[in-house]
């Protein structure tokens, strides 16, 4: 895959002395959805703001489609759409006018058909003549997405796009994002909602204290870092774990009815076979068994805690 955005050794120290980014390097591939996860103040928004030209970098280089964001800012910025975290809207303007403004600002001539398509895809067509001040928070959020899409960008930055949006609308937005990806748009998403990253992203980047801790394919990440639990639902409750099973570090739950074995997915699976053999030899009967894998959230929390 080709990189559409290449970030090399990027650092940012604000005037206050706060170092928001420390030597960050990242390549974003064409057509992917990459989710940047990180706690508040991790540097996600600073990273996006530098790529989009809103914040000046202290050191490092960023290129978009091969164009340097400082030297060739016109070409670099023309292909980017940005949906910022805050709801920054022109309160007194109509939805249509604010989208038309965004399109013009990015050097594109009027195209009412495209704006109609964008507004319809965001379920805003019937609100096109409404002033933005009359819209609900969720609708304003969609207007922000519409503005970012008005100039047909190849790359879309979504900085916490579903913050404060109800569940139904969030799912609608996920659908919009999926459709955009299908049309070839590369999407960089920052989110606090782990399930959003889990649901949408192809790759996950975890950023903490201005550093990228890891960037991995989502499935590989969950497999590689995820702990798994094997839960045996026993036919009869156990009072204590038999001596023969002690090497497996098992735990008893739910009044001795569930026997829990925690293991790493990377580990050799023969341990499970040995465990099941040992259980049979100990005369313990179980009526059912299940395995549970860690969510992205627990992986994230574990990484950020380190």
């Amino acid at each position, binding site marked *: 895959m080709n990189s559409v955005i290449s970030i090399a050794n990027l650092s940012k120290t604000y005037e206050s002395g706060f170092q928001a980014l420390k030597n960050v390097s990242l390549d974003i591939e064409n057509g992917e959805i990459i989710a940047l996860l990180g706690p508040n103040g991790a540097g996600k928004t600073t990273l996006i703001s530098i790529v989009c030209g809103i914040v000046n970098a202290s050191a490092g280089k960023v290129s978009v489609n091969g164009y340097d964001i400082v030297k060739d800012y016109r070409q670099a910025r023309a292909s980017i759409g940005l949906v910022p975290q*805050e709801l920054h809207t022109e309160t007194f*303007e109509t939805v249509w006018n604010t989208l038309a403004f965004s399109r013009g600002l990015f050097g594109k001539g009027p195209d009412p058909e495209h704006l109609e398509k964008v507004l319809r895809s965001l379920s805003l067509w019937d609100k096109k003549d409404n002033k933005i001040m009359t819209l609900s928070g969720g609708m304003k959020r969609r207007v922000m997405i519409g503005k970012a899409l008005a100039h047909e960008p190849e790359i879309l930055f979504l900085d916490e796009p579903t913050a404060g949006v109800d569940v139904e609308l969030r799912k609608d937005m996920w659908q919009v994002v999926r459709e955009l990806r299908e049309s070839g748009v590369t999407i960089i998403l920052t989110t606090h909602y782990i399930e959003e990253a889990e649901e949408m992203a192809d790759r996950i980047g975890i950023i903490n204290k201005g550093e990228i801790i890891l960037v991995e394919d989502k499935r590989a990440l969950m497999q590689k870092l995820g702990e798994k639990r094997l839960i045996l639902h026993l036919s009869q409750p156990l009072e204590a774990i038999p001596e023969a099973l002690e090497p497996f570090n098992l735990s008893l739950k739910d009044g001795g009815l569930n026997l829990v074995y925690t293991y790493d997915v990377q580990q050799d699976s023969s341990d499970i076979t040995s465990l099941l053999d040992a259980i049979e030899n100990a005369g313990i009967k179980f009526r059912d068994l299940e395995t549970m894998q860690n969510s992205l959230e627990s992986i994230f929390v574990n990484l950020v805690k380190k």
Partner: protein
Amino acid sequence: MNFHAIKAIYKFEMARTWRTIAQSIVSPVVSTSLYFVVFGSAIGSRMSDIGGVSYGAFLVPGLIMMSLLTQSISNASFGIYFPRFTGTIYEVLSAPVSPTEIVLGYVGAAATKAIMVGSIILVTATLFVDMHIMHPLSMLLFLVMTAMTFSMFGFIIGIWADNFEKLNIIPLLIVMPLTFLGGSFYSISMLPEFWQKVSLFNPVVYLVSGFRWSFYEISDVKVSISFLMTLFFLSVCIVVLHWIFKTGYRLKN
């Protein structure tokens, strides 16, 4: 040159004028008409001619220039301060737009509004006083140059200000007194010699003088000096704006 962007900013800014027509156009026209009634007709009728021009007619260029200055500054400063205040400036900063295009869009719209107000005042003035314009091209040149210069100045104030108080402090505490003391209502030759010399440090003197010369061929300073000084103020504003965009002062962290 990203002409679509210039047009988009210009149109967006002008849309505010039409949305707030009473505040943008009607209000300055009403207040200036009051100046004509009070100073031109009531007090002016008891005053002698200045340089062979009736006091009412003498006032016209000064009043137009006063409105032009205040309108240019307030339109441009608000035009850029408001998106900074609401946060919508992110879109302009992230767009493929050069500083020149941003300035042309915002300053162009602010200057247009100011010239519209100035022109309406000029038309309104004909209802109160008998007047004529001897050098219409020169008048137009001073009108446009002053509107552009002070719109740029207003744009600089709008970037410098980080609250509404600062946004108003320079227009109210500096520009307004300079305008009143800049010969809008009198010829500086009417002042004692010392104050005439002090007045020459007031930039508004050159603007009003040059503009008035275009109407009646009477001026406090030579018209060529007025023209050069206006050009100088324009250049200073361009240099400051260049520095602002180069450093990202108050625009980018």
